[in-house]
């Protein structure tokens, strides 16, 4: 018995040894590359060729918008067209890659614009891998001539996604509060524009004060706070019809509204008799639910992407801090424990981060942290930086920044800025006048 066991044990050991030897020799040499360069990828965006009339002009404009989008993301570096050896080619023609690779170009975009009739154009593009000498993606779109800019954004998203692996955010819009006039008589209007600042439009006339606009998940509605007839109330603005609707009738002041991820609820603060609590209102049946009940000020609520949690800020602990609770208002827990005060928490679209405003030692900061409060990182700072909003891919934040007042102490500039979450690249968004309280839309429906 013992002999048999010994024999079996010996055979197992021998077999294991043989397998090990075979395994070791089964593979070729393996070399691990665990370092690289995180830097903008050099791309060439050739002017889209046109067949007739203004198509050449539109082609050039589309190329320019794509180039601005990609470079503005901080992940790409556009090579100047003056350096191109070969002329732009049609997307159906395979480029001569040896004309492009010496310029250090890794990816090439070629495209064309065709006039179908006076009102419609057909835009086609192709993305080439110059090093692997292969095409990566191609697309053909037929749109109204006036919508060429949006086509450029859609193409930008396709290129961005194919080269970075992340979703794009170029075909989106920004709603914000446009400010004008002196500080003591400030006119604040709702305005909307493309994410790059183009296609700017005012939504309200400035006859009443507006604050904190937020997009619905469909990007077709905006909820905001308006001081209509000096009564602060939450309203909903329909972008298709242009109609405004008062959201319910409450005894006190309602503010800081935000849509739930499904769009069927609005979560907001209601102040009454000096106490501010968080409420939700069902848009289908107008039912109101109270989520918090304390003697403190609970405000700036924001849902998690899966709608299971809510973050908000509250002074219930003595100073303004960020708290988290279940969607039904239970299990309230503080998550911010750094120095200073915390406000305006916003949950990232993918749920992995929370953006916030921080106030510490007479300075304001924009930062991010994990939903459990860990890993706090500050991305931007200034005399006043506030109101972060996420791009739909969760890689870029937009906020407004106010400079320190000069001379008379009254005149000051308030502008919109965006920054990627690495904090390396801060870009100002050009607006016709001052701007504050931006809100980034989800990806626009096709």
């Amino acid at each position, binding site marked *: 018995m013992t002999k048999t066991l010994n024999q079996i044990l010996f055979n197992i050991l021998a077999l294991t040894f043989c397998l090990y030897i075979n395994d070791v020799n089964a593979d070729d040499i393996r070399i691990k590359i665990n370092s*690289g360069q995180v830097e903008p990828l050099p791309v060439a965006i050739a002017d889209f060729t046109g067949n007739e009339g203004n198509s050449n002009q539109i082609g050039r404009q589309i190329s320019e918008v794509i180039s601005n989008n990609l470079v503005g993301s901080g992940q790409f570096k556009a090579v100047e067209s003056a350096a191109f050896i070969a002329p732009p080619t049609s997307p159906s023609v395979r480029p001569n890659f040896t004309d492009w690779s010496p310029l250090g170009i890794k990816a090439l975009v070629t495209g064309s614009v065709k006039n179908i009739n006076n009102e419609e154009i057909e835009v086609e593009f192709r993305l080439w891998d110059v090093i692997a000498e292969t095409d990566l993606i191609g697309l053909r779109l037929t749109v109204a001539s006036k919508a060429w800019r949006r086509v450029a954004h859609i193409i930008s998203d396709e290129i961005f996604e*194919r080269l970075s692996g992340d979703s794009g955010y170029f075909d989106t819009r920004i709603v914000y509060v446009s400010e004008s006039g002196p500080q003591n008589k400030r006119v604040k209007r709702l305005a909307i524009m493309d994410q790059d600042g183009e296609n700017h439009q005012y939504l309200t006339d400035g006859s009443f004060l507006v604050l904190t606009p937020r997009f619905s998940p469909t990007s077709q509605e905006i909820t905001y706070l308006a001081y209509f007839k000096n009564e602060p109330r939450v309203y909903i603005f329909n972008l298709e019809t242009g109609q405004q609707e008062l959201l319910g009738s409450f005894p006190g002041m309602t503010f800081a509204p935000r849509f739930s991820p499904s769009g069927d609820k609005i979560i907001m603060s209601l102040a009454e008799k000096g106490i501010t609590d968080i409420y939700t209102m069902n848009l289908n049946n107008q039912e109101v639910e109270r989520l918090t009940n304390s003697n403190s000020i609970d405000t700036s609520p924001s849902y998690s992407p899966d709608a299971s949690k809510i973050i908000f800020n509250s002074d219930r602990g003595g100073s303004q801090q960020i708290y988290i609770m279940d969607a039904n208002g239970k299990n309230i827990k503080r998550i911010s424990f750094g120095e200073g005060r915390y406000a305006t928490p916003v949950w990232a679209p993918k749920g992995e981060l929370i953006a916030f405003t921080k106030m510490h030692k007479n300075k304001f900061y924009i930062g991010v942290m994990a939903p459990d409060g860990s890993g706090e990182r500050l991305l931007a700072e200034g005399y006043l930086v506030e109101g972060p909003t996420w791009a739909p891919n969760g890689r870029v934040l937009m906020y407004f920044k106010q400079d320190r007042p000069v001379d008379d102490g009254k005149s000051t500039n308030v502008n919109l800025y965006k920054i990627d979450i690495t904090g390396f690249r801060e870009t100002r968004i050009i607006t016709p006048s001052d701007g504050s309280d931006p809100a980034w839309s989800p990806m626009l429906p096709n």
Partner: protein
Amino acid sequence: MVNSTIISIGLHISIIMIAYIGMPSIKTKDPIEQPIDIVDDTPISSQTSLKFGPSNEKEEDKNKKDVVKEEKITKLSPPPPPPPSKEIIDKKNNELKKQQEIKEIAELIKKKPKLNVEKKIVPKVVTKPNIIKSSTPPKTVTKPEQIQKKQKQNLAKGLLNTLSEVKNQNNERKKEEVNKTELLNKIKKMAGNSNRRADEKEIKLSITDINVIQNHITKFWKLSYAASEVDIIIPLKITTNTDGSVNSVNIYDKAEYLKNKFYRATADAARRAVLDSSPLPLPKGKEKKFQNFILDFDTSFINSY
């Protein structure tokens, strides 16, 4: 005072006892010598025949015989027996022969400790002739015949049984050893070949050789910070020419490449890095080792950015 003395003595005694029982070097008791007792039980009367019978011991191993005889003499020292008849002498001679043979075999079975015994006895062997010369024939101890027969049978049976068992055990052990050695030889052959093959590939490649290639490719691997979302390793199968130029780059996990947009973008970036870094700085004289090899691109480093 008295009490402490008693306690001290008691403790000392207990320590000495523990040392005596516990330490093998102090306690000198050798149980291995037991088989010799079997020989002691044999009828001693036959020894007298040595005086008269023919000497058959020439062919045998003298040393071993002497050991047995010496012990017989020293332990028993019987009185000289009266001279027996020829028939009895022949009969007893034969019996003695048999017993001696058995004894010799038993001695052979004994293990290494015997060697020590032999060494000790060697000088006594010299005295053997003297003993024989000086000794008078021993007394014959008469035992009932039945008892004698039984004793002989039992003794022979026991020894033979033991011998047969030992033989069988020896055979099995030998077989096992042969099997093991054969298997080991086979494994050694395999291992030897494999090691040789491995040696051909690995021993010649130094860490510097690998580092040079790593550092070269690293310069060309350009990644988006979006890669920090997922820590993945992308293996690429590379074939090169002897001048270091990259012949082909194949992405291993085609399914993941088609399914996962992040994997696809990162794998494309890795492929560009390899193609862009061509020709690779292959170590001189070792180019053949890199005709086929694998590069594992690991994106985890981006987390540190």
